């Protein structure tokens, strides 16, 4: 139960970070917070509910996904910065029209 509450609070803070920051790197930080909070939920259920250990294995896969996602996202962000010298996501509107 305390773990679920911690996970919920951090998840909410992560969503807030995604919505609040204009900087693309800041949004990436929010995504990492969300992934971490989901991870702690999985591990809590693996300890208290599951008979096996599946939750921890799924948490490992989430960590793998987070690493791949961070690498790709930062490559894209660096490319955007090279082209436009900004990482403000509200100024990236080339595909609007």
């Amino acid at each position, binding site marked *: *139960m*305390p*773990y*679920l*509450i*911690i996970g919920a*609070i*951090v*998840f*909410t*803070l*992560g*969503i*807030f*970070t995604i*919505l*609040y*920051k*204009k*900087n693309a*790197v*800041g949004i*990436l*930080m*929010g995504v*990492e*917070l969300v992934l*971490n909070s989901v*991870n*702690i939920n999985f*591990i809590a259920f*693996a*300890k*208290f*509910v599951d008979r096996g*250990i*599946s939750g*921890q*294995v799924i*948490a*490992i*896969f989430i*960590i*793998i*996904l987070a*690493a*791949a996602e*961070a*690498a*790709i996202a*930062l*490559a*894209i*962000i*660096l*490319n955007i*910065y090279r082209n436009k010298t*900004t*990482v403000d996501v*509200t100024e990236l509107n080339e595909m609007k029209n």
Partner: protein
Amino acid sequence: MEVKEILFYAIAAFTIFSAGLVAFANKLIYSAFALLFTFLGFAGLYVYLSADFLAVTQIIIYVGGILILVLFGVLMTQKIYDLKALAAHNPLWLSLGGALFIALIIALLISTNIWHAVTPKPFEPTTGLIGKAILGDFLIPFEIASILLLGALIGAVYLARAEEKEK
């Protein structure tokens, strides 16, 4: 037992405080360093959940890998002295409203169900169990994850080098 619980609540408060710092810090570099402490706090909580292997994995991959990447991202994409760009945010009430909406849904979910431990487990090393699970029940997801990592590796190299070729 007492010391254990006090330490647990201290780690929990530490984690939540640094997560809040990530969300509310004005400068992005402060957010990045608060993210470091959030990851460390999560690793401590994993130890309490008898996930020793995951706690170490968390420190190695998140703190040693992802956080370094994020710091690279912050330092390479910031005009460090441009204070206006550093403090740019979306409207506070809008993002706070969205976050509170999510919080309401989760609070409803948590409070309307009864959560209790079904199978209490002893503290024991889990590395062997995880290894058997990965090479047994989870073999196909494991292979798919390795293909995904290969794709991410090639994709990141391609994305980061494409510009130089054109110039």
